Each structure stands twice: as structure tokens, then as C-alpha cells.
């Protein structure tokens, strides 16, 4: 009996077919803007769907070639900005948005600018633009953006409502987007320790778009949190098999640590460390926050964690990177410096169980004023299962 192909396999095949069709002609001179944009888009989509970040470089090269021949097309720079965003090259994103013809006047360009503002800690600007975009056109992706904003700022109810609205905008022709939204909703539930709801969303994500490793990866984290370790192990093994990326290898290694299987844990954590460092040596920046986390939590190596968290903070000064550096400084025993940064992170208005837990630990170590206990208590209120297995997203 032949197994039914999954939605993921079908879509990937369509993309590869599209690439094969355009491969011979897309780069021919004179350059056809529609053809080459589509070619670059398919390269981007293929890399995104397979989780292959290195392959994003192919799309980037195609775009550079197209721009040389066609000039600063807004579409091409928009795609380029998205690639740079995925790779955390935020200054490049800023430049792309400026260079693309009329890009900052367009809805997608403005949405990306707001995402950039969010990453750079310009929260008011991000929120205002998300709200303006929704007022102009109630699209699912703008709603999802504002939902995420509210999620991170601690307004879970509003986030939930906005995700609901975003879901309602999607049709049967957009099942991958629907699946992605269900994952976000699951993450939101997981962040407050509601495993049952999270599972329900992840299962819907899987039914909507079958066979996607991204769903398995979320399911694996959830299974780990629920102490269903065999299931988590099986799912993570599938994921690292399909997408051999260091961040997933780290997750599997940490799962083995939780399962008290030190030999397997070491094997995967070594792989992860190697992958992260090789990426950084190539001049890539998108694993800086993973390196910071890896050294702070896995190896408990404060100075190394400080090094990488500092580099990440240089790229984007937001509550998440501030908190990461504060935590690294805590690991390095630099409590007053950690406290300064944590206060800056908290001043953003973000409300998140992990953020509050970190704040609690730092306050407890740096200041005997009782705030540490308060933050720890708040963290436990926000997520009663905070100590369970989790990954850093």
C-alpha cells in the first residue's frame, strides 16, 4: 500500500517543480521581472519550508542579480528584507526597506517595518503601525502580528481574541497559514502552562497541514513539558533528521538531560555547539541568542554567555535580548549589571513568565528588597508549569 502524501510533501514538490520550470529561463537576459521575482520567491519558500537557512542565500543571490538588472524593485527588496529578517540581519532589513521603490508606502513594507520596530524595542511605533494596518485592511497577518505583540506584552486575552479573528480570515486555500496560526496559539497556551489547549491547537495545526516538521517540533516540546519523554524523543529525532539544525539538536540534547540520559545529551549538545559556532564563524548572526542561551543554561558558562548575548543585544535592543544578557551576567556573577539590564527589560512593559522568573532570580541575588520573591511568585502565577521542559523560541 502506498502511503498518502502529506500536505508538506505536496507543497514542496510543487515548489520544486516551479523552480525546475524556471531554472533554465529566470536568469536569462533581458530579465523578466515577474519570472525572476517568482524564481527568487520559490527559492525563498523552499528554504523556509525545509528550514534550510543556508539555502536562503540562493534566493538572496538571485535577488541581487535581479536588482542589478531591474533596479530597486519594491518586490525584490521586500523579499530581500524578509530573508534578512529571518537571519536577524536587522540593519540590513532597515536598509532594504529604504531602498525598495515605494516599499515603505506599501502595506507589506509597512508591516515589516513594524516587525523591525518590535525587534528593535520600539514598541509604541510597532503597535501603532499594526493597529493602523488593521484599520485600513483587516488581514490575517496584521491581526496575527498584533496578537503576538499583545502576547508578549502580557495581554493574553487580547492576543487570543486577535488570533481568533486572524483565523477567521483564512480560507481553505491558506491551510499552511492556518496551521501556522494554530501553532502560535498553542505556544501562547504553553506559555501559561495550559498543555491541553496547546495540544488541541497543535493537533489542529497537524490536521490542517499534514507532515510539517514545524508542527512535530512544537509537539515535541509539548510532549517534553508533559513528561511524555518517549513521544518527545521520537518527534525530536524525526525533526533533527529532517532539519539538522543546531537549535533543534540543542532541544534534543536538553530533552536527554531532562531524561537523565547524559551520554545522548552530550552527543547532541556537542553537535549543537559546533553548529552554532560554525555559523558564527561564517559571520552569521542568527544563532547569537541561541549561543547565549546555550552557554547560560546548558553549560552555565557565564562569560561565554555574556559574550554572545552582548552581540545579540547590539543587533536588537529589546526586552528579550536585554533579559538574555541580564541572565548571562547573572551566570557570570555580575549581579548589579544584570539588575540594570533587567530593569530596562521590564520597563518595556513585557509580561512573560520566563522574563519574570529571570527577574526574580536576578533581584534575589542582587537586591534584598523582596522584589525577587514577588517576581518569582508572578512567574509561577503566569505559568504554573514553568520549570518543566521547554525550548527557547
Amino acid at each position, binding site marked *: 500500500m502506498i502511503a498518502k502524501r502529506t500536505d508538506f510533501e505536496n507543497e514542496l514538490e510543487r515548489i520544486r517543480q516551479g523552480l525546475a520550470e524556471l531554472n533554465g529561463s529566470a536568469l536569462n537576459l533581458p530579465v523578466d*521581472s*515577474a519570472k525572476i*521575482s*517568482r524564481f527568487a*520567491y520559490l527559492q*525563498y*519558500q523552499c528554504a*523556509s519550508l525545509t528550514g534550510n*537557512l543556508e539555502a536562503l542565500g540562493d534566493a538572496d543571490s538571485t535577488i541581487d542579480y535581479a536588482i542589478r538588472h*531591474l*533596479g530597486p*524593485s*519594491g*518586490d525584490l527588496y*521586500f523579499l530581500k528584507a524578509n530573508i534578512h*529578517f*529571518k537571519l536577524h540581519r536587522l540593519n540590513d532589513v532597515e536598509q532594504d526597506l529604504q531602498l*525598495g*521603490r*515605494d*516599499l515603505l508606502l*506599501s*502595506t*507589506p*513594507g509597512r508591516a515589516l517595518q513594524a*516587525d523591525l520596530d*518590535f*525587534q528593535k524595542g520600539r514598541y509604541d511605533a510597532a503597535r501603532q503601525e499594526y493597529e493602523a494596518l488593521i484599520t485600513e*485592511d483587516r*488581514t*490575517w*497577518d496584521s491581526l*496575527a502580528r498584533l496578537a*503576538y*505583540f499583545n502576547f508578549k506584552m502580557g495581554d493574553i486575552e487580547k492576543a487570543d481574541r486577535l488570533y481568533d479573528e486572524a*483565523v*477567521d*480570515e*483564512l*480560507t*481553505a*486555500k*491558506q*491551510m*499552511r*497559514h*492556518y496551521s*501556522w*496560526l494554530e501553532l*502560535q496559539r498553542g505556544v501562547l497556551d504553553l506559555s501559561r502552562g495550559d498543555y491541553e489547549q496547546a495540544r488541541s491547537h497543535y493537533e*489542529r495545526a497537524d*490536521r*490542517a497541514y499534514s507532515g510539517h516538521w514545524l508542527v512535530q517540533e512544537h509537539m515535541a516540546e509539548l510532549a517534553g513539558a508533559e513528561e511524555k519523554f518517549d513521544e518527545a524523543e521520537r518527534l525530536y529525532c524525526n525533526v533533527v533528521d529532517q532539519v539538522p*539544525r543546531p*537549535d533543534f539538536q540543542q532541544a534534543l540534547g536538553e530533552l536527554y538531560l531532562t531524561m537523565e540520559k547524559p551520554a545522548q545529551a552530550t552527543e547532541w549538545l556537542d553537535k549543537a555547539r559546533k553548529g552554532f559556532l560554525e555559523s558564527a564563524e561564517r559571520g552569521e548572526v*542568527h544563532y547569537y*541568542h541561541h549561543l547565549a542561551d546555550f552557554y547560560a543554561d546548558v553549560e552555565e558558562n557565564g562569560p561565554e554567555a555574556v559574550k554572545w548575548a552582548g552581540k545579540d543585544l547590539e543587533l536588537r535592543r529589546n526586552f*528579550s535580548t536585554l533579559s538574555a544578557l541580564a541572565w548571562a551576567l547573572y551566570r557570570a556573577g555580575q549581579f548589579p549589571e544584570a539588575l540594570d539590564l533587567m530593569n530596562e527589560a521590564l520597563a518595556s512593559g513585557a509580561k512573560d513568565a520566563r522574563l519574570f522568573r529571570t527577574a526574580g532570580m536576578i533581584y534575589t541575588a542582587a537586591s534584598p528588597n523582596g522584589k525577587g520573591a514577588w517576581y518569582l511568585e508572578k512567574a509561577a502565577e503566569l505559568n504554573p508549569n514553568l520549570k518543566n521542559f521547554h525550548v*527557547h*523560541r
Partner: protein
Amino acid sequence: MADHNDPNAVNSIFSDIDVSAADLYDIFGFPSSNTDGGEKVVIALTFASMPSTGVFDTDMLYRILVSSDPRVVGLSNDEHHLKGLLRYFDAIKEKFLGPFKASEIRVTVDQSQRATVKFIDFPGASFSTVIDTNKVTTIDTPDGHAIKAYIGGRDDAFFNDLTGFFRSINYAPQFYRVPHTMAGSRELKIPKTLIELEGNHLFNFDPNDPEWGYGNNKRELPPGPHTWNGDKFFKDANGNFRFVYSGRDCQAGININAIILEIPLAFITDAPDHNRIVNTWGESWVLKAADKIETIPDHPFWLENPIALIGQSKIDDELKKYKLVDTDGQPFADAALSEREDNRQLGANNFWLAPHFIKRLAHLGWGFGPSITALGLQTSFDHDNSPVSVHKTYSLVTAAFPRVKKTLFQHLNMPDDSWNPKGLNIPLRRPVEVFVPNVCAIDMDTTGTWPYGRRPEDQVATRFLSLFLDMEAELNGKKYHIELLNDPALWNSVPIEPKTAPNPMKNDKEFLKDFPYLADPWG
């Protein structure tokens, strides 16, 4: 992978939205010539043949809404002012949105390509049946009527020079590869016109590339500014204007999918002698993502009950699972008057667009009016004797209204009396009555030719342009009429090249004399 949000919106703009089964093309409606057993009305809703001709997208739901009314006299002459017009809009709004809601025919097609057809809120009954696609079927209703139905592939019954129309409104995506991120560079800020503007190199016909703008023959959009700074119409060495139209049929050889019905009037209304107007419009809805994963294909209820009476609660629950995508009532109501913005897909409920309709009509008038005058014809639009088309937009309806007053309220003369075979005292329709609400209003005492419905053979694209003619003017002793611009003799007598009617005179395939009327699909 990362600690940032990534809603994949990039896919939304790059996945080159293919022709979609939700894209409604036309709705035709006319009284059937077959009156055996009583009067019948023919309604045909056409849409993109996706996934292929005769094969239906199972995520779609199509609605044909039907509402019958007595023929009423529209706006009286003393109401030809803005206040009167707004009062008129309010009155018809109440009629369409009030308690007497329309009946509907709802169609979905399952995986085995069998169509479920639901007749909802008709006077006799609400009922449902399942029929084969691509086959003429007679549906017997619970109250004893027989409805003919055909749900399948046909030849596209629309015949027009779409490229010419887009050239007339300087619509860049027909001629250029316009980046998705340049949404403001579609209808360029160049005067609309029926004859070419001197120096309008962005859109004027290129004799070295006559196929430009046809098919998928597009160019790269040059860097801006995308404007025109000329001050006259183009004339060739012989002093002839250049027509933006070519008379070509851009829809030749193209198939569509269609829902075609021939319905007894007595099934639509229990007062067929009184309710002589059948208003109809179509809608396309697509299944919501959340409901797709809950869908159980081939629901046993429908399979076991080929003709099942259905309750209102069931119906509403069904529609909640879908999202409205497109509507169709009047030809050109979208493209010409609403600029095809998605959020204006309101069908009959386009009342709030009425002020926009007036402003848009004035905008078009500043383009088409002067070109009509230049050709030696008289226009209904007040353009202050402008020697050339003007690009002008309005933010205030009060400023636009005086310009279009005559265009809105003039009677649309018919070329002869054949449209009114019974010789009844039926008032000539006016543009304002035709476009708001956006429905096909079929007068059962006429032949149903536009604007008294719409017959497949009507050249509606050319008739639409006649709105800008002054219907009080005369040519060769005869009043202007809606077919004037479709008369080859006219074009032979004016200084223009090519000497052709704007759009083709007839469809590329002969229509059928009997149901389902639209021609067989191309093989």
C-alpha cells in the same frame, strides 16, 4: 527557529494569486422564450473554470439571490437633485435590506463532482437536491414546478476588448509587470479617454508591438513619474484620432464554469402577474480554513435525502463556514465603478457606495466626456468644453454631482422597440437605477436585453460607454441610444482609426437557442 514573529505574509503577496474559482465573471438574466407551463426566467452565473472546465472547486459555495418586485416608477423628475438621489438610495436600501429578504439558490460541489443545489426561502418551499454536473437536469420542486439546471463548463459568453478598456483607463497591470508592493501604480494618474492622448507613451498603441497588452504580453514598468503632461488628443498624419479600442475579442476561445437555471416565475413569487421584476445577483464564497479541517465529505444526510427540506438554522450554520469573496450583479459595476477593491464586494448591498459611485462616475466622465466631444458627438457629462480629457478626482460628492447629474438621470434610449415586445408602458431606465443596487433587474415583460436584464448576446461593454452620450441629442434624425457606439456606420463617419466598434459585435461561438443557452465549451 527564532524569537520573533513571522506570519509568512510574504507568501500572500508573492504566490501570484492564480485565477480563482471565486472570481465571478458575469450574471445573465432574461425571460425565457419557452413559456410552456408558464413564464420562466433564465439566470446564468459564470466564473473562472478552476480547477478546469466543467470541474468545480469543492471549497467553493455559490449563491444566486433572487428577489421579485412590482415594476415601479423610479425617481421622478423633481427629484433630480442630490438630496432626492440620497432619498432614493435610502428607500431602495430599505427594500433590499429590510424584512423581505431575497430567496436564494445555493450550490456546492462535492469530491465526486456532484452538485448539491439548495433552494432557500422561495414561496413554495425550501428544499435541496443533488444533481450531476455538466448535464442538463430537470429538478422537480415539492410544490410541483420544474426547474432546469445546468452546472458545468461552457464557452465564456462575454465578448469584449478588455485590453481596450484597460487602455482607456490607463490600467498598468494589463500592460506592465507592476510589482505587488506598488499597489498605487495600477490605475495610473493619467486622464481616462476613448481616444489616445498625444504623448501618452505609457499606454498608446505601439505599431511595432501590436500584441502589447494582449494575452500576457507585458513590459517592465519603467521608472516614474507615471503621468502625462500633454494637452491634446493624438492625431495621425491624416488628422484621424486613434481609438483605444480595437474591437478584438479578448475572451475568444476561453471557457468558464457556470450555474445556469431556468426557473418558473411562479416558483419565485406567488404573485407572478404583479411582481414583474426579478432582481438577481451572484456571490462566491470560499470555505474557511477552520471549517475545512472539520468538513466531513459527502455528508450522509444529503446522500440519503436527495430532496431534503432544510431548515433556516441549518442554512445559517452552513454559510458561517464560508467567507464572501466576490459578487456580481451589473456588468462593469466592479471594474468601472468600484475599482475592484475587495472590500467593496457587496453585491446588492452596495448602498454605502452610492456617494463613491457618483464621484467615480465624475472621474470617468472627465476622461470619456471630452473624448466623445472631440469625436463630434454630444456627451451627458458636463466637462466645461474641455478640449482634452482631464484626470480629476473628487473628495466631495457635492462637487461631483453637478457634473454627472445628466449622466445619472437621463433615460437610456433603446435603439428600437424590440426590447418591449408587448408594447407596454415601461419607463426607460436611468443609469442611477441600473447601478445602485448592484443587481441584474430582469423585467419579465421585456426581452431582458440590458438594462432590462442581460442577454448573452448584449454587447454590454459598449452599452456601458453609452452612459456618457447625451441621450437627448440626435444623429441623422434619430435620438442617441445605447447601441449607437456599437454601430459600424458611426465609426465610418468619424475621424478615427481603426474604424471599428469598440468591442466585438458578437460572441466567438454561437449561443444556443435553447437551454442552457451558453455555447458548449471549447474542446
